[in-house]
Structures are given as C-alpha cells and as structure tokens.
C-alpha cells in the first residue's frame, strides 16, 4: 500500500533510468572509458567537439542496447534515428547531445508488470565541478570540466507510470538493476553513477484514470533514497491537495541528508531542445544477424528465473526471488542440483538462502569465490540432511566448519561417526537410561506437563552427541512415558 497517502489518493509513478554501458570505448569516438582516472585524460578531438569532427557509432554499444531492449521485452525498431538535443552548458561540448527522439531504438516492453515506454541510446555529458561552498554553479568562483565521461554510451529507459508506491519503485528499480547487471552490459553502480534514476511522481483520486500534475525527482543515487524521496514527495503533494493547493509541475532535487526536496531553478530546466535529426549519422538499422546474436546472448533473466524456480522446481516464493536476483547464488544452486540429482531443489534452496547465507553474513558477505565451499560439498551436506543420514544440528555444525576450514562433510561424518542414530533399539536404550536418570521431569510429564519433555529430549540429544533425529527422540520418549 502507498506510504502515508490517504486512502482516497493513489500514487502514480514512472521511472527514467540512465544506464552507462560498460563498453571499451565511448559512444562516438575511440577514447577508452574510465572511472576515477585523472581529469581530461580520456579525450580526443571528437569528444571535445573540435571543429569538423564527426561521430562514428560504437557497434558494441548498439549490441548492448539491443540486449537491454530484448531483456525488457521491447520491440527493436528496424530503423531508428539519432537526433541532436540542443542546449548550451559547459558539460555538453558540442552544445548538443546525440540522443534519440521520435524513433527510439526500443519501445513497448514490460518488466514485472511495469510497462517500458521506450529505451534509447545516447551519450553522457562531461562532469563539472563548481568551486565554492554551494557546489552549484550559482555563486561559485569558477567551474572545472572533466571530459573523461563526455561521450560515454548511455541507455535511457523510460517506464510508463505503472508504479503505485515508493516501495514498489524501489523494488522494481532493484529488479531492473539486477536484470541489466546479469546481462553484463553495465556496472550498474549507482554511487559511481553508472546507473542513475529519476522519478516522475503524481497523485490522483483512487480509481481515477487521469494523470495528475507530475513533478520530477532528479538523480537519486540509491534505490533507498529513491524510495525516501518519492515518499517525501507523495507526502508533500498530498499535503498540498489537502490544503486546497495545486501541484505545480517542477523538477526537484532530494537531499537524502535532510530529507528535504529543493526545486531546481526554472532557468536550469526551461529548455527548448530544438531536436534535429542528426545529419552526421545514418539511421540505426540493426540487421537480423545482429538481433539474433543479441537474442542468443541473453542469459536467463531474474523475472523468468524466479518463475521457473517457483513453477518448475517447487522452490518457495522468497528463496526463488532471492536467488533470481543473485546470479552467483543461482549459479551455485544449479551446480548443487547437478552434483546431487536426488537433492530436492526446495531443500537445496533453503540451505543456500538460509543457513549458508547466514554463514556468509557471519563472514562479512565475502564473494562466493573467496569461500572454501564447493557447490558439490554443500549439495552433499544438504543430501545427507534430506536423507536423515545426519541430524539438522550436525549439518549446521558441519556447515560452519566447511565455511571456516573447507572440510569435506562426507569424510568428516565417517571419520567422526556423526551419522544419525538410525538403529531405534540403540536409541530406545538411551531413552530408557535418560528416563531412569531424570525421574523428576519424567514424572512431571506423566502428570500432564508436556512441556517438561524438553528437558528429557535435551538429555537424549546430549547423550547421542546430537546424532539423533529430534522427531524420532520425541516419539520414543513419549512411548516410554506412556503418552504414545
């Protein structure tokens, strides 16, 4: 449900996401991409917009953009057009950005019930640093421009206003990020700016199909801030409506430190971009081989993977979702199932996302490659537990040792005789002994206090070194006490 909105109002949210592609070189010149290198060390006459230079499109960037388009279920235009988007600013060396306008590369897609309006290719601007306290150009004593980023390939993804709450915006954004990450076409690092998200936010009476006046929240650098920013903006808009005022269309900047929303100066946004078909470039017409290649290179993406895990493998909703967005864990799962064909996917997934994930957290969430546990070893462990060859407690202890010391669980079970007591006569003898040695709790149980059985179960488990199955112990105890 929408956070904080009165019941008669509904949030209407659309997202605009910019993804920097992780190509070797820039969109229209041969300069290598960089992050964190000294300023203006990745430049050439083309990305500095010297007189007479011309753009040459980066084939790899087009391939990556097509992969994103296909992953989002979009239609790829047979012939899309580059446009010039004109505005003066020092971060925009040509004073126009090469982008796409009325015929974008991709349109009409859908991801997790949010429709994709369009996705198109464009180039990034340079980075500016303003000298002075505010960090803004107004009132600064000077500005510096670093053109390393200028011309980095970007894919802009625009959704339809299909999102209905701030938390849904965050979750959907995270799914999109994972989807793009798993394509391997971007670092999708929001802090470094390789994924940037703007939100268009409006409210309307619940049940209405009209769109209210929207505001644009710019450049949220995490999905947590996106959620907070949208929540704050929905509150603000609802407050305006409640006091009989109108929402004014404007662009807002969210300050995550203070939680405040600042309007950007209208002068900064009042642009007539004077779009013009880019005469220096021919239309972008991917051939069928290029499309086929892109289609073939698509991995199974989170949405489809979660569905398959649920529907075909019978993995419960929560672990299925978690595995679908964590490609590394999902790969681990597949390897476990391949190693132990009899291991139930549900059991494997529970071990992986439950006890194993907890062990990883204990270790500070290292990369799986840094953990000395092979998928096959974890599968053996889960199999032994599934077949009740070892008790759950034994399995948990073994897992801790696997993560710490890389032990082989099968070998250790044999060496240390940790196999579950499957011989019930042996267990019966132990139970008899325990009941004899603990007359107090035994009598309490027999007097009707069933809770007192816990002390006896604990004593049996201690006697067996944790090798007994809890359920079995309970059964035999109850029998011995005449509760059967």
């Amino acid at each position: 449900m929408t956070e904080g909105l009165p019941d008669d109002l509904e949030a209407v949210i659309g997202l605009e996401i910019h993804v920097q592609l992780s190509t070797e070189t820039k969109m229209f010149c041969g300069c290598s991409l960089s992050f964190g290198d000294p300023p203006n060390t990745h430049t050439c006459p083309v990305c500095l917009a010297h007189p007479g230079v011309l753009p040459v499109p980066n084939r790899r960037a087009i391939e990556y953009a097509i992969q994103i388009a296909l992953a989002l279920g979009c239609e790829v235009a047979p012939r899309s057009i580059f446009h010039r988007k004109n505005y003066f600013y020092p971060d925009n060396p040509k004073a126009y950005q090469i982008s796409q306008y009325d015929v974008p590369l991709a349109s009409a897609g859908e991801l997790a019930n949010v429709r994709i309006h369009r996705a198109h290719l464009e180039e990034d601007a340079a980075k500016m640093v303003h000298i002075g306290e505010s960090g803004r150009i107004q009132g600064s004593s000077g500005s510096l421009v670093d053109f390393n980023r200028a011309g980095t390939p970007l894919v802009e993804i625009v959704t339809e206003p299909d999102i209905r709450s701030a938390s849904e915006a965050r979750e959907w954004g995270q799914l999109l990020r994972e989807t793009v990450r798993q394509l391997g076409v971007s670092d999708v690092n929001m802090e470094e700016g390789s994924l940037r998200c703007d939100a268009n936010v409006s409210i309307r009476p619940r049940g209405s199909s009209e769109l209210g006046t929207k505001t644009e929240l710019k450049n949220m650098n995490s999905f947590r801030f996106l959620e907070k920013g949208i929540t704050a903006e929905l509150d603000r808009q609802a407050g305006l409506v409640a006091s009989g005022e109108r929402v004014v269309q404007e662009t807002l900047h969210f300050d995550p430190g203070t939680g405040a929303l600042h309007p950007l100066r209208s002068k900064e946004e009042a642009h007539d971009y004077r779009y013009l078909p880019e005469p220096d470039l021919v239309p972008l017409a991917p051939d069928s081989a290029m499309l086929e290649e892109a289609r073939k290179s698509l991995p199974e993406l989170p949405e489809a993977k979660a569905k398959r895990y649920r529907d075909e493998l019978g993995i419960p909703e929560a672990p299925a979702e978690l595995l679908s967005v964590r490609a590394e864990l999902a790969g681990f799962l597949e390897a476990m199932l391949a190693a132990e064909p009899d291991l139930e996917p549900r059991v494997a997934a529970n071990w992986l996302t439950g006890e194993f994930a907890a062990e990883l957290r204990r270790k500070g969430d290292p990369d799986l490659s840094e953990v000395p546990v092979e998928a096959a070893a974890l599968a053996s462990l889960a199999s032994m537990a599934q077949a009740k060859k070892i008790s759950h407690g034994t399995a948990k202890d073994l897992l801790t040792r696997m993560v710490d010391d890389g032990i082989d669980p099968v070998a250790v079970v044999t060496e240390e005789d940790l196999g579950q007591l499957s011989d019930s006569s042996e267990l019966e003898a132990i139970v008899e002994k325990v009941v004899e040695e603990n007359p107090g709790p035994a009598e309490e149980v027999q007097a009707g206090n069933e809770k007192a059985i816990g002390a006896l179960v604990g004593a049996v488990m201690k006697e067996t070194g944790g090798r007994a199955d809890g359920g079995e112990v309970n059964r035999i105890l109850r029998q011995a006490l005449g509760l059967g």
Partner: protein
Amino acid sequence: MAGEPLGMLSACATGEAIGSGELDGAECLAFWAERAGDETLNAYLWTGPDDGGQRIAGAPVAVKDIFCTEGLPTTAGSRILDGYAPPFDATAVTRLRAAGLPVLGKTNMDEFAMGSSNENSAYGPVLNPWDRTRVPGGSSGGSAAAVAAGAAPWALGTDTGGSIRQPAALCGIVGLKPTYGAVSRFGMIAFASSLDQCGTFGHSVADAAELLSVVEGLDPRDSTSTGIPGGLSRPTASDLEGITVGVPRNFLEVGVEQGVADRFAEALKTVERLGGTIRDIELPHAELGISAYYVIAPAEASTNLSRYDGVRYGLRVPADDLVEMYERTRGEGFGPEVKRRIMLGTYALSSGYYDQYYGTAQKVRTLIVRDFEAAFSEVDLIATPTTPGVAFELGAKTSDPWSMYLNDLFTVPMSLAGIPAISIPAGLAAPPEGGPQLPVGLQLAAPAFAEQALIESAHALEAAIGFDERPEGGGDS
C-alpha cells in the same frame, strides 16, 4: 612540357613532370609558394607552404580554410577561431599529403562558408582577379581567386549550395562538386552537414577531376561517406555523341543577365555541334530550392555552430557569469551573416515551428530529389548557367541578403539533391550596367555517382568552347 613556363603548366602535367624527373618537386613548390605569397587579392589567410618534409609528387594545393590542418591556423574565415590550430588533419588533407601534394596555403572564405561573395570573411573580402572592384563569388572565393590569378595550380573548396561552382563561374575556372558522400567530411568544418561537400578547382576539367580522385573515397570516420564507386579516371571524350542534355527552360526564365543568357545559348549550340541532343525538361520544384535551402542550411548551421562557446578553444571573451561569457564570446566572435543564419535556424527548429519550417523544407527537398530522378530518366545531363549574372561589385548586394541568396538559384537544387555538378567557363560577358568583360559559367549536373560521365562530357565541351582567357596579372606574368 619542355620550355613551357611552370605557371602555365596544368596541374596534371606538373605531377607527371615531377614523376618523370623532368621537374624537381621542391623547386615546383618554391615557385608556387612565391606566387601564393605575392598575391594581392587577399585570397590566402595563411601561406606556408607546409611540405611537412614529405615527398613531393605533384603540384601543391591551395586549401580552403574550412579544412582542419594539423598545427596550422584554421579559422573558417571567423574571428571566433582566431588563433585556433587543430590537433588533426581533415581526411581530405590527409589524402593530399599521402599523395605527395603539399598544402600551399589556406584560402580566404566567407565566414563558416556562409556567403556568395566572400565579403563575409572576418579577414576582409577577396578581390576578383578579373576586376578588383568586384567579388570573386563565395564561399570558396579565396580558392577560386587564387587559381584564377595564378597564385595556385589547383585548390580544394567546399560547396553547400553553390560555394564551389559559383566562384568558379565568377573567376573563369572549373569548379567540381561531387555527389554528397564522395569525399569525407571529417575535419571539414561543418556549415550544413547534410549539404556540405568537398570539391575541387582547376584550370581544366582534367585538373579538377584529378584532384577529386585524390581526395574522394570512403572514410570510416565519416558515417555518411561513400567514395565514388569505381573511382575516377582522366577524361578523354572529344564529342557528345549519344548524350542528351536537359535544359529546364522554365526555371531559367527569371533574372538571367543577357550576357549570361547569350553564352549559355552558344554553349547549347556547341553541345549539338559535338553530336549531343538538347531536350527541354521540367524541374517543377527547383525554384523552391532557395527557400528550402535557407531553412535547412541555417537550421543545421545553428546547431553546428553552437560548439563555439568559448569553453574549450578559440575566442573567449571573459565575463562575470557563464551566460554572459557565452553571449559576449559569440557576440564578438561571429559576423552579421553568421548571426543572421543562426537566428533563422534557431527559429526554424524551435518548438512549435519545426514542422512548419524544417519539416516543410525537407518535403520540398524530397520533391526536388524526385524532380531530378524524373529528369534523369530522360536525359544524361542537365545544363544551366551556373549563376544568373557575372561578378558583381563589392558591396552591391551586402545590404540585401535575398538578392545575394539568388546568386545560388541555379546551384542550390543540385546541392539539395546531393548530385554532382560542375561549372566550366563558357566565355566572357559584360555586366548589364556595362563594364569589363567577365567570365560566365556553364553548369552541368549528373545523377548521383555519375561523376565519370559528367567529367567526360564537360571535358569534351571545354575543349570545344576553347576558353583560354586569363585575367590580366594572372597566369604566367
């Protein structure tokens, strides 16, 4: 060549003489460098020469200052690029160097190629070598005047709406504009990207064609370049047997000076004398060309010239804030004609007017393309006078942009259609108000990439017309 003065030797023959060892390349370059250095028409903005220590295999080339030349001043005739020396060569210049043709100098031009008289240069007008009170045409006026005056053996120019053909006509030399895409535009400072095309000047069709064959070719740095399929070979035709030449009579009714009309009529008779056939054709939308051109070209120019903002190179006029810096830099850096076109183009692209202006102009352009396609289904070539009149006096049209724009009436349609066209001298004529005998140009146009056919016919006609006049003080004086 033995005994022939170097200045009268054709550029092609010069290359052959250097190739055979009859002529020393360095000596040849020194000769032309002295000629270029001595010229007094303001045709050059910079003279070198710049041999770059390379092998010299042919006659040096005067290069319009719109081409980037590594480490050499490149201004495009504008104050805003005063002192700018690009860190790279234009592809056309790279090809010259690779062919052993040194850059003789950088020639004066209308600022950013916007003009038809060369009076829009920030560095002063170029004078017409036939009459120093008259304009040489533009925008490649420096290149045309330098070749006509014997201050360069041949030259590179650019043509956006007539900027090679018109000055070639007004200076009495050959100007060749190839099909759009024939020569890479990389490093050629953009005026109107969908129209700009590099072309050549020479005293003969063979020279102009030879220079074009050096610079044409597909270039991976220009996505719109194609080169000329099959390349170009030296023209050899001596007649026009089997060639049909179309004449768009209706289009030619308006405002052609009598002297120009007479030379044109004689040229058509020469076509027939050479065995060619003249056929009247229609180009119904050609007369709308100027109007469409003066929307499309300024629109593209308005965005192409936005990069001159004082931030990275060229002129910067300091100011207290960013917007004022932009305004003062561009206010002082650009001349009046450039500002006029930036304003026209900005208006034409602005929200709400795009369809009305740019969209409509593009539709007209498409109609003109179809006009030519229809015409070329019936004829091999189309002939017109290159310009409605001969060279006019300096200042005569500067206060009336529209009359200036009409100079390009007959050359603009070919630019809009992207097809090749050539201007060759058709004789001399006096201006209507009386005065000296001045050159008249004959324009021939051909279908896209039919350059070879175009130069063959132009070569045959050139020989039959036999124009061998040179301006006083030009040639080998």
